[in-house]
């Protein structure tokens, strides 16, 4: 009987000791390390056929499923970062009225209370966030190739979408040809340039030549 207690006792002590010495991977990550940069593109798109782009001066902020336009200092930093990266890979910025080949939409997602948002389904509501009329194509819808990232978004995320405006009239749709998604901790409190550059750096096909 004594032996049984001894065995049970030592097994329990050992068990607790072992579980407590297991490394917790999340506590070993800095905010920078916690972030992932996901890119995806429409393989039928010829990125060098586009020359000009236009970017909205505000972003769409989706707070638990409700969208509105925002233009905070953080949003402006991301807009400036995308503008600078697009220029760096050879695209020329023009005014929205001057028939840009590519439109750029930036979306900030805060999803603390509604649970999980699946990224692919997100495009279903895309027209609700971005009025196609903004790009001069009222009546058209948005279309995303179904190969795009299937990520569930739990907390915060930032997405950058490049839209094919050049072929919208022919396609009768505004096709989303490239998507960059940033997820993780500290997206909105860290350097926007570094984060946006990471997305462009891993997309070598995204350039004018």
């Amino acid at each position: 009987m004594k032996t049984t207690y001894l065995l049970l006792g030592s097994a329990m002590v050992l068990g607790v000791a072992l579980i407590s010495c297991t490394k917790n991977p999340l506590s070993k990550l800095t905010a920078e390390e916690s972030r992932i940069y996901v890119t995806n593109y429409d393989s039928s798109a010829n990125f060098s056929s586009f020359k000009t782009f236009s970017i909205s001066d505000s972003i769409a902020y989706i707070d638990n499923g409700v969208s509105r336009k925002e233009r905070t200092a953080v949003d402006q930093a991301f807009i400036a970062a995308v503008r600078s990266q697009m220029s760096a890979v050879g695209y020329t910025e023009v005014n929205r009225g001057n028939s840009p080949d590519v439109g750029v939409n930036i979306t900030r997602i805060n999803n603390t209370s509604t649970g999980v948002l699946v990224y692919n389904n997100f495009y279903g509501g895309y027209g609700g966030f971005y009025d196609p009329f903004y790009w001069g194509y009222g009546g058209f819808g948005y279309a995303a190739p179904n190969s795009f990232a299937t990520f569930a978004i739990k907390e915060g995320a930032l997405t950058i979408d490049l839209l094919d405006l050049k072929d919208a009239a022919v396609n009768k749709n505004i096709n989303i040809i490239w998507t960059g998604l940033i997820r993780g901790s500290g997206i909105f409190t860290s350097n926007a340039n570094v984060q946006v550059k990471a997305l462009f750096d891993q997309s070598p096909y995204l350039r004018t030549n």
Partner: protein
Amino acid sequence: MKKSITAIVTILCSVAATQAFSQDVVGNRWRLQLGYNVSAPIGSFKNDFIDKTSFRGATGELRYIINPKFAVGLAGGYQDFYQKYPRAVYNTGDNENISAVLTNTMQLIPIMLRGTYFPTGEKQAFAKPFVSLGAGANVITYKQYLGEFGSRDNSARFAASAGAGVLIPFNKYTNGTGFTLGANYNYGAYNKNGIGNINSVSFNVGLAIELK
């Protein structure tokens, strides 16, 4: 592999059983063995998942002395493998790329039936060498994190191990109680998540206790 190990264990057990009680056993037939375990992944485990040696592990075995030269026991253990890889870009789909810091972890709980052979039997000696052979299963917790986003997979797979070591009794009156030192080759079946096996080589130091 599986069949041959089962066969060897069966042969060892039957040889031991025929010799049972033919010699005197000193002390209690029940022994407890507890040890600290260091484990180094090898093969596909090392190449495809984690190449860092784990210093977070333990082993335990409740052993029954069938005869002075042979014991069978129920062995359990725990090992925590962890590795963080620097940021890199991974291709995760046709056109999809993810830049992430990759963290791989695996927790193993091996549960085995093990036979241990002491060539010197219960004769008093400064050091008593032993060899062991065990077979059972690993309870496996696989986790992979891209940044802070993780996936998890639990499974149980066949496991076997072959080991050798030495028991150093505290003094001549405590023949079965003493320090132990050992090394094991561990075979672990696994064929998921791009990992072909979870084989490892491990080293342990511990205590063997003759239960009263």
